[in-house]
């Protein structure tokens, strides 16, 4: 369970949000909405532990995430603005490295399974630099399928650059995660119907200090 209490984020001269409070239980999806610059990405980075909040706490299973970094990281999958794939490695090498570094099954069949899920099996031996934006996005999303047992997913604009077929696939992947009791926090710009278990958190936009 993810618990957020009294969260405040100040970036530069603006206070993006303050006194933010919510709780995410197994099987729930949280859609963070708001205008550009409202602090959606900052909030997701705080939840992932990449950014320290100005005030407030984020707790995972009752423990503050800053104190249990390694345990929290192993239960979290994060897809940010940057895809985090290497252009000089092939798609398969990218997926296998990520699994190996996480201590997961890094065998070729396991990696191919994840790629197949997102329709990337034909591109397995292609170098990252030869992929289109949408294909790169799908390789980044393959980390979700490579790690199905990870309970918490934090996805920043996961539908960006995807074609309609891939959007449907990703929708299915997210729905499956929720169905098995996983949790998803995401931001979405496009008009996409999210699974029924989705709550919406509107960030109203910041105020100058």
């Amino acid at each position: 369970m993810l618990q957020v209490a009294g969260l405040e984020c100040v970036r530069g001269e603006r206070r993006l949000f303050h006194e933010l409070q919510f709780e995410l239980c197994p099987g729930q999806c949280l859609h963070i909405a708001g205008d550009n610059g409202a602090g959606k990405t900052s909030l997701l980075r705080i939840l992932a532990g990449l950014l320290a909040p100005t005030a407030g706490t984020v707790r995972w299973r009752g423990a503050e995430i800053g104190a249990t970094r390694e345990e929290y990281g192993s239960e979290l999958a994060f897809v940010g603005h940057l895809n985090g794939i290497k252009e000089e490695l092939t798609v398969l090498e990218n997926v296998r490295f990520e699994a190996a570094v996480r201590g997961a099954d890094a065998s070729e069949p396991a990696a191919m399974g994840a790629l197949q899920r997102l329709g990337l099996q034909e591109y397995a031996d292609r170098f990252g630099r030869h992929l289109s934006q949408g294909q790169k996005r799908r390789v980044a999303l393959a980390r979700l399928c490579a790690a199905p047992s990870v309970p918490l997913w934090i996805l920043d604009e996961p539908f960006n650059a995807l074609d309609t077929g891939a959007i449907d696939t990703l929708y299915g992947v997210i729905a499956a995660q929720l169905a098995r009791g996983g949790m998803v926090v995401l931001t979405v710009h496009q008009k996409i119907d999210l699974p029924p278990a989705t709550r919406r958190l509107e960030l109203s936009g910041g105020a100058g200090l």
Partner: protein
Amino acid sequence: MTGALLAMVRRDLLLALRQRGDVLNVLLFFVVVVTMVPLGVGPELSVLRMIGAGTVWVAALLASIVSLARMFAQDYADGSLEQMMLAGQPASVIVIGKILAHWLVTGAPITLAAIPIAVMFDLGVDPAATLVASLALGTPALSLVGAVGAALTLGLRGGGVLVTLLVLPLTVPILIFGAAAVEATAGGLSPAPDLLLLAGLSLGSAALAPWAIATALRISLE
């Protein structure tokens, strides 16, 4: 944990292999600097013997600083650094893997290249062996200390200049003991004290640097 470390080293070596030019560039820089010096000071053997070790060490130091800019920069720019920090592994394990790979593609080839270069400066067998030993013991400290600077200046504009200013003073002791070891051997003394000090510097930075680098990377990622 060892699995993650090995995966990290393997990945960075594979990347170095795919971007051979960048790796060769560092080695070439080292060789070119060292071979230019005799052209500048003249072919007098006694002079070359005297300045050989110092020249090799200065070139090794500069080459390692040239290579620092790339240590974390690409991983930072394409987002793979943040993925590695969230991989559920201690950040220091990731960092040690990256430094080990960095040393294998810079420090290790420089150490090997020093063998023919020692012949070129007519150092003699014993001083040449000491030079290679001092590089083998000292270059890990160059990679470790350099990585702290690289992590601290990550994502900054003009980080390249800053990293040189930050790292250079810290690497001066390595340069002094490295050159002194060879000088001692050439003068008929034991190089052991200097070599032990170099090993101590490498071990000391191996103990402290990963922790500092991990913290610096976390700050840079904010």
